[in-house]
Structure formats: structure tokens, C-alpha cells
């Protein structure tokens, strides 16, 4: 062991501290370009959470829809769930869930408990669809147009602001009628 190698822990620590500092000091964080933006939704053969029936990519296409990656182990998913319920109840946009690396019975119980905003949830127990989608973690939300092209990606929770400022305009551009329903 030489004296130089003893500097290794210090180097590692300074690197980590620099990354933390840089990260937290950034005032204008920039979105990483999603490799999948304007690419077709990957092909898959999976099952439905509700009844185990098979579901594939082409079953979802037709109208633009929101694809939301969620799991019961993910606290942020729980936090955004009320907003998803609200969107599903008020607006004419289908939501499709991807139940990511989760336990089937727990996921069904979770939806029964907190409400089910999804037209259907795709079971992605092994996380392979997540890998294809380039998922960093849960939750993530994609907008897929009628031809199956990914038009938008959100990493992290969808809240009222994200819906109003980001997701709704994109959906309206895709031709979905998203007028505010009469109160």
C-alpha cells in the first residue's frame, strides 16, 4: 500500500460532495433529452393486472393516451395518485398503468383502496417493459399518440401544475378535446 492510495477515500468523497453541491446549487436544471422522445412505444406482450388477460402494444393504440408507470412500493406514486384520479374523472383521456416490479395482489388491493384511474394496468413484474421505456424509477408518465409514438415524458410525480402547463397542452395539440367540464 502506498501513500497515494490513501488519498483515494478523500478523492471519492470530494467527487461526491462536488456532485451534490453542483446538483443542489443548479438554479436552472435542464431536462435530460429522452432517448425515446418521438420514437415508437416499444413492443411488448404482457398481461392485464385486473384479470391476467394478455395485452400487447397494438391493443393500446387508436387515440392518444397517458402511460403511467407506478408501483405500491413507491411513495411518490401514492402522492400523485389523487391527481391521476382527478384527471381520469374529469377529462376524456385514457390512462394506462404500467405496474412496475410489483406484487400483483398488493397492487390490486392498492387500486381498490385508493381508486383506479386506469383503463387498464399492464403487469411488468420483471421490469422488462420499464427497461424498454428507459424508466429511471417510479413514477414516470408518457404521452403516446394515436400512432403509438411517444410525444412526452415526465419523470416524477404529475401534479396540477404539470398537468396544466405540460401534459394538457401536448394532449390538446394531439387533438384530444380536453375542455374544462362544467363544474
Amino acid at each position: 500500500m502506498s501513500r497515494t492510495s490513501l488519498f483515494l477515500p478523500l478523492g471519492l468523497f470530494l467527487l461526491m460532495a462536488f456532485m451534490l453541491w453542483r446538483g443542489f446549487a443548479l438554479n436552472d436544471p435542464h431536462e435530460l433529452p429522452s432517448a425515446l422522445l418521438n420514437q415508437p412505444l416499444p413492443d411488448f406482450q404482457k398481461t392485464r393486472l385486473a384479470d391476467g388477460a394478455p395485452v400487447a402494444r397494438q391493443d393500446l393504440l387508436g387515440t392518444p393516451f397517458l402511460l403511467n408507470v407506478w408501483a405500491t412500493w413507491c411513495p411518490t406514486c401514492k402522492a400523485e395518485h389523487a391527481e391521476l384520479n382527478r384527471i381520469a374523472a374529469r377529462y376524456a383521456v385514457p390512462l394506462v398503468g404500467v405496474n412496475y416490479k410489483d406484487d400483483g395482489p398488493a397492487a390490486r388491493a392498492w387500486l381498490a383502496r385508493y381508486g383506479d384511474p386506469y383503463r387498464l394496468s399492464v403487469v411488468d413484474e420483471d421490469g422488462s417493459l420499464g427497461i424498454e421505456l428507459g424508466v429511471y424509477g417510479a413514477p414516470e408518465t408518457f404521452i403516446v399518440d394515436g400512432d403509438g409514438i411517444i410525444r412526452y415524458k415526465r419523470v416524477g410525480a404529475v401534479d396540477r401544475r404539470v398537468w396544466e402547463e405540460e401534459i394538457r397542452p401536448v394532449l390538446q395539440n394531439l387533438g384530444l378535446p380536453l375542455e374544462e367540464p362544467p363544474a
Partner: protein
Amino acid sequence: MIPELGHFALILALMLAVLLAVVPMAGVVRRDLTLQHSAGALSAGLFVFLLLSYACLTQAFLQDDFSVAYVANNSNALLPWYYKVSAVWGAHEGSFLLWTLIMGGWTLAVALRSEALPTAMLARVLSVMGALTVGFILFLLMTSNPFERVLPVAAVEGADLNPQLQDFGLIVHPPMLYTGYVGFSVAFAFAIAALLSGRLDAAWARWSRPWTNLAWAFLSVGIALGSWWAYYELGWGGWWFWDAVENASFMPWLVGTALIHSLAVTEKRGVFKSWTVLLAIAAFSLSLLGAFIVRSGVLTSVHAFAVDPERGMFILVFLLLVVGSALALYALRAPVMRAEARYEGLSREVMLLANNIVLVVSTAAVLLGTLYPLVYESLTGGGKISVGPPYFNAVFVPLMVLLLLMMAPAPLARWKRTGAAQLMSSLSKVALASVALGLALPLVITGALELWPVLSVMLGTWITLALLVDALERVRNKQGLSAKLRGLKNLGAGYGGMVLAHLGVAVTALGIALTTTYSTERDVRLAPGESVTLGPRTYLFEGVAPLEGPNYVADQGTVRVFQNGQPIAVLHPEKRRYLARQMVMTEADIDPGFFRDLYVALGEPLGEGAWALRVHDKPFVRWVWFGGVLMMFGGLMAAFDRRYRRLKLRDQAALAGALAS
């Protein structure tokens, strides 16, 4: 007046901490014994003023002094007195004052219990601890002053303590946890002092060992209490979520565990010195990092950090100063010489090294999983994500299986070299028994073979029987039962502590595997008079009645549990609405048992007297925390081993001899 007194006491404590950081250290440099001896008195003074400051804040809570912002935000006139006392550490400012007070307590304890330490060494140690305390108090005074007033007084009743925290678990959990966290500062200070003096020897490791064991014992029980609290208070029946707050306490525990083992090697065999110093620095650094993660606001969101950048930036700079300078000192002063002691491939040294590697790799995995979402969020501006249990379980569980596997041969292995044949002969029967029991027990009791129960029973038996074999071998030469028992007693408290702590690990591992596999739960809608069956038991819902608590109103359900037609328990889960915050809390009711918990939580009212109910059957869940309690007793027992006192006297005699000649 009292809050101002507390504020002033805190400022005086800061002065004393600065003196403690500077004066004894200057005494060491100038070889001035009087200055070195001032460390004890300064430590005592520092503690007294911290205690005074803390007592003033407590008094402000007891008197409902809502002109103090922190009291107004975290207490309520209707709160029972014991929650007023514990509300002091119910939020950021007060809990950090408690943290600092505990730091003062450790400093005083070191000052009082180290009469055998060379004066210069003690002066260095206490100076380092004083310097750390300066940072803590500055943080309080500059960014998190709990004594700040709001005048004119706006609050009449106070906003109340967060209802989740109005609970016995929260009275005891933070003090235990902080005592553990902050306790690693002692090992840290000893390491820095040793690096400064260049005296990195067996004596240094021996002085550090009891303090490290003590801190580790508190941290173990602190973590177990936190898990228990989450289990009964959050209402989902979960007991570990791999969330960043939990990880923040778990990482120092993992490194602390490695440190305990590595200190043993350094003391007994004089090897791994640099490695041990590095672990001592790492354990406390991870405690500080945990404080940064939890307190800077980066958890809620990186953007919360931006809202209160002062606080986060202070901790980051403090972290950089403390850890950076410690690691720089390490790089410059740690010994590069190869140790003279020799050991072979199959020896206790190597076993403990392997233990260290597994524990450090586990820590790195947890650190990565904890920081990744934060770094991701900050670099991309995306939202909050979790990598969650799938990642942690996939990485962590195999590592722990490996660790448990090594826990049988390691205590049996001897220093320097172990005969492979001897080890084989000792362990082959143990291995056989473990496999047999691991297959038989789950099969006989449940009629099925599932991976985790089988594996955990095997590993639990493996560890337990190996400990037994080892103890018996150590008294093999004693004749007769009473001589054998005396022989066991003579193995010492350190050995007994090791056995207890290892048993605790086995118990916790068993609890985790069994409760994860065998737990069942059901969500049902029940009208009064309806029942649900889960496993061998039937739960009869008798309806809900209103109940009035001191600062809340509740709907209290009654659920009778029957097994084989016999009533075995009556549970009263509640749905509480806390008046001050208008917050609704689910208060689960649990029938605890050594082999199983019955857990009932009240969901939402569904009309016509019917309610959503969640019923859990959780076998062996207590074992998860019972293991933690065993670990605590193991750590305490080892810390108070008489050996340290005896050896301290020997060190003292040696020192006196050296001075006399």
C-alpha cells in the same frame, strides 16, 4: 424571559465549545499540561449550558409559551404534558438541540470515564469533539434557532404536534437514534486524535472499542424502535420501506458494525490499522450525511432545498470541512507500513476482513440507492422518483445471506491460523443439523417448502448452533457442570455480548424472512355484525362508536377475534381527527404475540354503518425488533466488559513506569 435565557445559554455553550476546541489542542502543541487539563472542566461546562438551554426550551413547551415560534408550531395547549416534553424534539430545530445536547453528553462521558488515558490523548479527543460541537451550535444559532419569538403573539392554542408523532414510539425513538448517531463521534474523535499523535496502536483501538459498542447498541435499538413505530403508526403494517430517512440511519449502522469487528482485529492483532481508522471516520461521516439528507429538505424535493438553501448549504459546508479534513489527515498520516503480524488464509483475521468487505459493499449499495434519486433529480430537474425496494432487495438480500453464512465459521476461527480439518469437524454436524431443520420445520408446520423460510431457518440454526459449539469447545477441558458454567462465565462479557448480538442478527433475519413470506392481509367492507375470516381466525366487526380524546375526536371500532369458536382478542382500531390540524389519522389496533401479530386498521366509512377494514395476520413480525433488542444488550454487555477497566489500569501502570524512568 425563559426562552431568552435558553438562547443565551446556547451562546455561552458556543463560547465554551470554541474554547474546548482550541485550548486543550494548543496545550498539546505547546506541551502545556495545564491547558491540556482544562479539557475536563470545559466539557463539563459545555454540557451544563447545553442542558440549561434544553431545559429552557422544555419549560417553554410546558408553559405553552406560544410567543416562541417553534412552540407555537409544534405544541398545543390541550396536548398531554408528556407529549409536550417529547414535542421538544418533534421538529427540526428542537430535535437538533437534542442532538447537540447528546453530543455534549458523550463529550462529558468521555471526559469522566477516561482517567486512564494519557493526558495529551484525552485533550486531543475532547478538542475534536468540541470542534464538532461548535459546528452543531453554530448551525442551531445561524439557521435553526428554536428560541425565536413571534411578537405580537398570534397563536392562542398552538398548531399542535404532528399527530403521527403523538405516540410512545416517538418519545423514545429519536433520543435512542441520536445517541447512536452522535456516539460514533467518539470513535471518530479517537481516530483523529490517533492520527494527529501518530500513535495508532492496540491501545488506541482498545480505548475506542467500548465507546463504539455503546454507540452501536443505541443505534441498533433506535433503528428497531423506528421500524416498530412505522409498523403500528402508519397503519399499513409495513415495517421497513427503504426510504431515505431509514437508510440514513442504516448506513452508519452497517459501517459501525464493520468498525466493531475491525477494531477487534486491530486491538488483538495490530493489523488493519489504516482500514479501521477509515471506518471510524466513515461511520461518523455517514451519520452527518444522514443529518444532511434528512434536514436539508432535499428529501421532500431538491426544490425545497432551494427554498431554504441556508440550512442545506451550512450542512454541506460543515460536512465538507469535517469529512474533508478528516480524510485529508488520513491520507497524510495513516501508516503505510505493512503490519508485522502474520496471519494465514484461514484465520479469524481473514474472516473478519471478509465481514468488513461485505458490510462496506452493502453500505455502498444503500448509499447509491439513496443518493441516486437525489442526484438524478438535481441534475435533470425532473421530479422525485424512487428506486424503491426492488433495487434494495435485489442487491441487499444476497449480501446479507453471504454475511449470515460467514457468521458461523468466523467466531470459531482462531487468530493467525485455523486448522481447516478442525473447523470442518466442528461445523459439519452443524451444517447437517441446519439443513435438516431448515427443511423439516417449515415442511412440518406449513406443509410447504418455500425458499426464504427454509433458507432463514437453515441460516438461523447454522449461526446459533455454531455459537453453541464454540462455547462448548472453549470449556471442553473443564470437568463437571459447575466448572463448565464457571468457565463460560470466565469467557467474559465481551464474548457474551458477541453471542447475544449474533443471536439478535439471526432472530431479526428469521423474523424478516418469515413475516415477509407468511403474512396475509385482507381489505374488506364490513357492516356491523359481519365478519371476515383470515387464516384460522375470524374477525367479527361490531360497529363503530364515537370517542373523545384530549386533543382529538375519534371513531372507535370494535372487532372481536375468534379462533376455533373461542374469543381470543378484542381490538379497537380508531380513526382519529386531530382538532388543531384537522388531520385524520388511522390508529391501528394490534394483538401482539411472540409468534404472530393480529393487526386491524379502520379505513373509510362506506355508509350505513359499514366500514372498510384492513386485517393483517403477521407471523413472527416481533422477531424483527426483538433481534434489535438482543443486539442492543449484546452491545451494552460488550461495552461494559471488565477487561477494558483492567487493561486501562495496565496502560496506566505502563505509562507511569515510562514517566518514572
